[in-house]
């Protein structure tokens, strides 16, 4: 799978929070450590709910954790 257009700063934010481990974050969010790892590496885009839970667990706003680099999609019905 190619990396998604959604990038994140989870790794940086974890280390800023007393080097929180992936397992600690996973337990706070309610997912597996492997899922946090997949999100961090950009291999998996979480649902909006999990994204909010990650932001809450890290104590920041959603947009400080995730950003979208794919640009705006073309309006429907317009030629690309």
């Amino acid at each position: 799978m190619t990396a998604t257009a959604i990038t994140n700063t989870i790794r940086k934010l974890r280390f800023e929070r007393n080097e929180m481990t992936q397992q600690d974050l996973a337990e706070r969010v309610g997912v597996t450590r492997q899922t946090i790892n997949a999100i961090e590496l950009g291999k998996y885009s979480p649902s909006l709910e999990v994204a909010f839970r990650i932001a809450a667990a890290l104590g920041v706003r959603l947009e400080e954790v995730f950003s979208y680099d794919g640009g705006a999609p073309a309006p429907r019905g317009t030629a690309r």
Partner: protein
Amino acid sequence: MSFREKTAWITLITLVLASLLFVVHPPTDLTLAPDSDLFRFHVLLLSIATFVVIEIVAIVVVALRAPRDAKAPFDERERLITLKAKGLAWHALAWSSLGSVMITIHLGANEIGLAYCVLASFVFSLMVNYAARIVYYRRGA
């Protein structure tokens, strides 16, 4: 590697071993001719028993080594992986079952031959299911 990825590997490997046992390593029951249907049925039962025993023992061992992972509910990524793998497996089951019926009609196999072919289709679809899960776990989702 997560608990569920390990169990997917265990199931896939056990399925392959049990299938190989059925195909190439029949029990040495000298009272039955190798080509008899009863003999094949005994081999089938042995293969199923082998599958069940290895599967249970291996998964219990893995679960005992990581009890917290084993008890954790499926998260959204794991549910997505399961769903995508099952989608592929259903296609595999549908096409291989159809293929089995067509092949047995053309070969003139009896009902027992047809039943074995459909069973093989089911096993094949399970292999596709667990192989797909492993691939999705490796890729992220």
